[in-house]
């Protein structure tokens, strides 16, 4: 296992590449999900507002 992690002495480079890539892809997906959620909330709020206005 340690041997695998050491990558023949190139650990910083190899893992630096792979982990950064994994990290950034995950960040991209999370950011997308976050954006989608806040957008949905906003649309719902506006819809509620409109209904409220119409009822008045």
């Amino acid at each position: 296992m340690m041997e695998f992690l050491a990558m023949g002495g190139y650990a910083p480079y190899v893992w630096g590449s792979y982990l950064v890539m994994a990290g950034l892809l995950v960040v991209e997906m999370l950011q997308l999900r976050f954006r989608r959620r806040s957008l949905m909330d906003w649309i719902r709020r506006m819809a509620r507002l409109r209904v409220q206005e119409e009822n008045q």
Partner: protein
Amino acid sequence: MSERGIQWFRFTAPANFYDLAGRLIPWFAALTIALFGVGLYMGLVVAPSDYQQGDSYRIIYIHVPTAWMGMFLYVLMAIYAAIGLIWRIKIAEIMAKSIAPTGALFTFLALWTGALWGRPTWGVFWVWDARLTSMLLLLFLYLGYMALHAAIDDRQRASNASAVLAMVGVVNVPIIYFSVHWWNTLHQGASITVTEAPTMAMIMFVTLMIMVLATWVYSIAVVLARARVELLERERTARWVQERLEGERR
């Protein structure tokens, strides 16, 4: 906008696109996980280390796919932008805008992984090699596109303006590439260039292709997902959005 134009693609109608993308995304997401799983296992565990570069060569499995993806997505983005600008097709505009962040991300990753690979192989993180330099300029083109999009408030105007920029950029990419190439070979200086891996072993090649496929599927999934969000944001007052929202939880 006045003449709604070409409707022969069924999915150009926003609601249809929204639904279709929503149905496709889970499949691509699943495929992405599977391909990355297999690719990473093969690349990091199964494939033997290189007799010259040792284990550092394993970076190739992400370096090459990201580099390809970065370049390809720019062209794709420009094509969508042109379609959006000329025929005023909303979905194309949205696709162009949605591709940009992913393309920039992959371009950045190509630079990053290349730099980390360069250290063990060349002894430095960076040389002003033609390929590296034009990749860097490509990143700037992406950033300029996104900055322009962000700087303009009006959505329609933003996508039109950045479409012009994307098209100008794509005409220039080959010019940039050749001039940079020429510049580098004219000066003496850095004689190190990106070396071809010596006749790749079969296992390496297969692994590489799996990883390339994985980044492809990932890009499709993410771009579609982002396009859906963009679409919602643009059409948030449309009736179909309200209808979709009744049904959907998240």
